[in-house]
């Protein structure tokens, strides 16, 4: 381990701007020889964005890297502050990151309000109150291997965020005193958003910071959930807010969106949500109520278009399996899918008419696709039947010609 640090040293020195100046950086040269706890920082910092921009240990920690002895190099008179206490970390990083004039030198478009936002967050407020168990800058960004958020190796790159937040929030022992559940990351990974991000690689999919904020991290308030989800699902939010459900929910302070769809483990919605026996409506509405009748009617419309869409898809595959070209049928099927999505969105109006207006054209398009696919399969069979008939006719004709030829050959009239 010490060997690794020592071996890293020449690499570090070779690329360090300090080395270019032919001056040895004694922070690095000394720390590289220390035990793992004090030498790992040398290896980490090699890839750090701050080093890339030309900063060194002293830029944040103070002191004088040109001095060889520890007392001179880590001299408080030379500004050395050492490793900051947990509670001082935001101010330590904010020394530069909250200074617009300074930050402009490196990246004019980088925000400089992180420290401010952090102070409004749950983490920030608890830290001010003396709780050192909460996340600080280094907890999420790491202390010495910081990369820009868009860099895939960064601890705060979209795909890595669940893991970063989960370091604390999935730790049952750590979260016990706060009485916060620890299943969010697990639920998220199984959710439609988690799968979109981590399996399909769609970095537009929301992740922890999208809904909870980066530095001002706090759960959205009850009134806010609909707005947060509505950032990407505006139509659903809009329809809900103009539906008969909106006012009573706001009055009773129910969580909009999350009440039916849950917070972290959001699954692709199915018509089961509207089911008479086990749907979410039953949490508030009685089974035989007018509301449930609306739910059932909406469910029927959706099941209709979804069922026809599935049937059409299967029929198209059967036809393509037989080698038939299903280009036109697939176009109708695509139109049916678009209508299906619109119908699902229309559910949030909680009005049957609105859902029907979207679902009915989708049903018709899917039906058209299915008919075309079934016709193609019939055509496949008919071709063979037609060939059989034609072959029979040709065979008989050939036979007739043969007999005729033989007849003529034996002396008959031509």
């Amino acid at each position: 381990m010490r060997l690794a640090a020592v071996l890293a040293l020449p690499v570090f020195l070779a690329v360090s701007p300090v080395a270019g100046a032919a001056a040895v950086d004694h922070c690095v040269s000394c720390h590289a020889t220390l035990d793992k706890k004090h030498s790992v920082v040398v290896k980490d910092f090699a890839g750090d964005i701050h080093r890339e921009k030309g900063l060194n240990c002293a830029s944040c920690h103070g002191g004088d890297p040109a001095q060889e002895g520890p007392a001179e190099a880590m001299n408080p008179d030379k500004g050395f502050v050492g490793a900051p206490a947990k509670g001082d970390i935001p101010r330590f990083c904010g020394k530069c990151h909250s200074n617009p004039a300074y930050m402009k030198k490196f990246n004019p478009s980088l925000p400089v309000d992180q420290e401010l936002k952090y102070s409004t967050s749950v983490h920030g407020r608890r830290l001010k109150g003396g709780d050192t168990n909460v996340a600080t800058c280094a907890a999420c960004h790491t202390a010495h291997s910081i990369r820009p958020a868009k860099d895939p190796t960064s601890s705060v790159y979209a795909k890595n965020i669940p893991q970063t937040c989960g370091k604390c929030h999935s730790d049952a022992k750590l979260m016990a005193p706060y009485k916060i559940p620890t299943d969010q990351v697990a639920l998220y990974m199984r959710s439609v958003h988690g799968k979109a991000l981590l399996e399909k690689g769609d970095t537009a999919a929301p992740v922890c910071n999208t809904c909870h904020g980066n530095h001002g991290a706090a759960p959205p308030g009850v009134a806010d959930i609909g707005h947060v989800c509505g950032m990407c699902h505006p139509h659903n939010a809009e329809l809900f807010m103009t539906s008969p459900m909106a006012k009573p929910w706001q009055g009773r302070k129910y969580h909009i969106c999350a009440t039916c769809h849950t917070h972290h483990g959001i699954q692709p919605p199915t018509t089961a949500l509207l089911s008479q026996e086990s749907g979410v409506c039953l949490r508030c509405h009685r089974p035989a109520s007018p509301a449930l009748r609306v739910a059932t009617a909406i469910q029927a419309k959706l099941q209709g278009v979804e069922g026809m869409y599935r049937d059409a898809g299967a029929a198209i595959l059967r036809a393509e399996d037989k080698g038939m070209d299903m280009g036109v049928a697939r176009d109708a099927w695509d139109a049916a899918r678009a209508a299906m999505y619109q119908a699902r969105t229309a559910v949030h109006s909680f009005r049957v008419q609105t859902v029907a207006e979207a679902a009915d054209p989708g049903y018709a398009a899917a039906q058209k696709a299915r008919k075309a696919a079934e016709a193609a399969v019939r055509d496949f069979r008919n071709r063979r039947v037609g060939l059989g008939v034609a072959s029979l006719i040709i065979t008989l004709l050939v036979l007739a010609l043969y007999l005729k030829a033989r007849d003529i050959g034996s002396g008959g009239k031509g």
Partner: protein
Amino acid sequence: MTSLNRKQFLNLFLGGGVAGLLASIGYPVLRYLVPPEQAEAEPNSQKVGPVSDFTPGTSKLVKFGAKPVIVIRDLKGVFHALSASCTHLDCIVQYSKDRELVWCACHNGKYDLSGRNISGPPPRPLDPFVVQIAGGMVTVAKRV
């Protein structure tokens, strides 16, 4: 007597065979010559309606062959035609008159009127089409 009957039978057989052959060739050929409902393979240009149908600040969804296309006449009266299939997950986009842009309701993707993706999840711009106006008629054509 018998040979005559046989010969007549053979001629009939032959004639029937020839007729059958002509039918089994003629029937497909005749059916083939009748054009199908969708008369064109894939149009290079398509009429979408008279100019009077498009008041400024409105849009119309049309089918170009089998592809959905949105034809927009913005508040300044300029025509735009774009593929209406969102490049994120293929939802049908719509025109937002107030914000002078194209919007996808599924995940809030936004495009400007030349089709460039400006906000939200869409990874690519919308394919543009060419709009031609002649004799008061609006025609959409493929951009070559």
